[in-house]
């Protein structure tokens, strides 16, 4: 089926080429980072995790969100999602790969990655995160490819796929819960040590992932002959609305806990993010607030939610807001102030941003190829 990705319009090849250029540039910067060390990034002794790990955290959520189309279709027989489960699964695959790549570019000694498997450490959440993420990637590859092959051949999928699909539902929840556990079990980081971290992660994932899926479906509609139908999009819109509402509600819970208790140590992280921090970060956090509000307003109102154009705007707002909060605010906010009360400012450097863009481009490349394959098969079936 991969041959479907080898033929396309001029626009398709221009897009592929641009992605390859970005990957090449980022690759050069990554070689620079390998040679000189992680000192070429903006990371420092106090903020020891930054852009890379934040992207990883955000993308685990996007990967997990495939469950939001799989669950209604397979557990509750919601027929309208039948056409887009493959798009959800084929979104989870590049998301998982991007997660692994972001960990890879963040490691000080990537040549030693095999030690995680040679010397298993069940006490470490990161060990479990590696396992569940890899398992989830394999699940989606096997399920997605098998279902698509069966569809192409016009036969029913093999029986063993069903239990795998059922397994992928709790597994999706587990990958993001385990990722949240990376943060919420650390005794020295008050910003993260809250029981609501995992629920927040899941809620924002289930808002961001389906939002992205809505935008991808609209792109697929525009560039291919495959149209999953407005009903599927509207249902996704409903899911995003509830998830975003819960996510914002959870965030407001954090705000209440911190500010009503008035504990200075807890307030410091929030005042850093929203007031005292560097301009880019404070701006990003308030933009998150604005976009979250705008997105919710658009999505809560049924008229604007069901109009596909405004739905797209709302989805874009929700996705961007979630990215700003999780992909920037969460990690940096947790490290500042540091354990001795000092504020060390972290600003991503140019090589760091280029390498991050490279990983995102790899993800988009894989996503493009997979979607080309999926839509190619669907077009082929529709034509015959």
């Amino acid at each position, binding site marked *: 089926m991969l041959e479907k990705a*080898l*033929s396309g319009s001029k626009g398709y090849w221009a897009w592929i080429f641009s992605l390859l250029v970005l990957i090449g540039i980022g690759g050069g910067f990554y070689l620079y980072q390998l040679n000189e060390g992680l000192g070429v990034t903006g990371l420092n002794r106090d903020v020891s995790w930054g852009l890379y790990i934040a992207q990883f955290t955000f993308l685990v959520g996007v990967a997990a969100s495939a469950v939001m189309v799989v669950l209604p279709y397979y557990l509750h027989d919601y027929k309208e999602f039948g056409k887009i489960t493959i798009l959800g699964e084929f979104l989870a695959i590049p998301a998982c790969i991007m997660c692994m790549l972001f960990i890879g570019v963040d490691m000080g000694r990537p040549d030693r990655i095999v030690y995680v498997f040679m010397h298993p450490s069940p006490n470490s959440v990161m060990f479990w995160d590696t396992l569940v993420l890899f398992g989830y990637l394999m699940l989606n590859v096997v399920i997605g490819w098998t279902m698509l092959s069966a569809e192409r051949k016009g036969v029913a999928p093999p029986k063993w796929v069903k239990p795998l699909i059922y397994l992928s539902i709790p597994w999706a929840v587990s990958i993001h819960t385990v990722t949240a556990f990376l943060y919420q079990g650390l005794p020295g980081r008050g910003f993260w040590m809250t029981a609501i971290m995992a629920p927040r992660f899941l809620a924002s994932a289930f808002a961001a992932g389906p939002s992205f899926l809505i935008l991808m479906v609209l792109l697929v509609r525009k560039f291919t002959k495959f149209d999953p139908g407005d009903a599927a999009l509207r249902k996704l819109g409903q899911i995003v609305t509830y998830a975003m509402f819960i996510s914002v509600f959870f965030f407001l819970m954090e705000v209440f806990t911190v500010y009503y208790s008035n504990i200075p140590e807890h307030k410091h992280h929030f005042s850093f993010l929203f007031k005292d921090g560097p301009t880019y970060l404070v701006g990003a956090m308030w933009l998150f607030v604005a976009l979250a509000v705008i997105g919710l307003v658009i999505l809560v109102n049924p008229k604007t939610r069901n109009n596909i154009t405004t739905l797209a705007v709302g989805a874009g707002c929700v996705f961007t807001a979630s990215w700003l909060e999780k992909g920037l605010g969460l990690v940096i906010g947790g490290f500042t102030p540091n354990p001795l009360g000092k504020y060390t400012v972290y600003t991503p450097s140019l090589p760091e941003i280029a390498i991050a863009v490279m990983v995102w481009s790899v993800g988009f490349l894989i996503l493009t190829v997979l979607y080309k394959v999926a839509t190619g098969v669907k077009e*082929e079936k529709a*034509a*015959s």
Partner: protein
Amino acid sequence: MADDKDIEKQEETYEPKNYEYKQTEHARSDMPLIVLGLLVFVALMLGATLANRGIGKFGSKPVLDLPKDEKFCVRDVKFMRENHMKLLNTWRDQVVRDGVRTEKIPRRDATGKILKDASGKTVYQTIGRSLTKTCLRCHDNHESFCQRCHEYTGVVKHGGTLKCFQCHIMPNPKTKAGR
């Protein structure tokens, strides 16, 4: 009859519907892709060879600088030739992870024979399980000892440094240690 004519018409215009592969609109040769793939393969294969050019002449064995004072190592030559990395890794784990920093080995005389005391029992000496303090005390120039064989066998690239010495320091650091 009308029915016969319809059937005739059907047969005339019959087209097979469910063939496996559709013809693409432009018949496209895969040759450019194949050639590109082959070129990438050749480049990758040649690259490794080219990166290692300049290592030793074919047929010439590396000449090692041996320690002048000590005639005998903590293990015999045959064992060391085959197992020195295993020994170093074992020592590393025993010292760093288990905390056992010394071991007893038999004392040997100048010819390498194991020394025995008056009652015929082997005499032992205590050595540290230390790359820096034991091995490098005698093999004090890794460039003219370790490096020569490792470069010859391609373990280290020409002009590079063994990874050990990125951290471990020669007791007399007159050699290029690391960068």
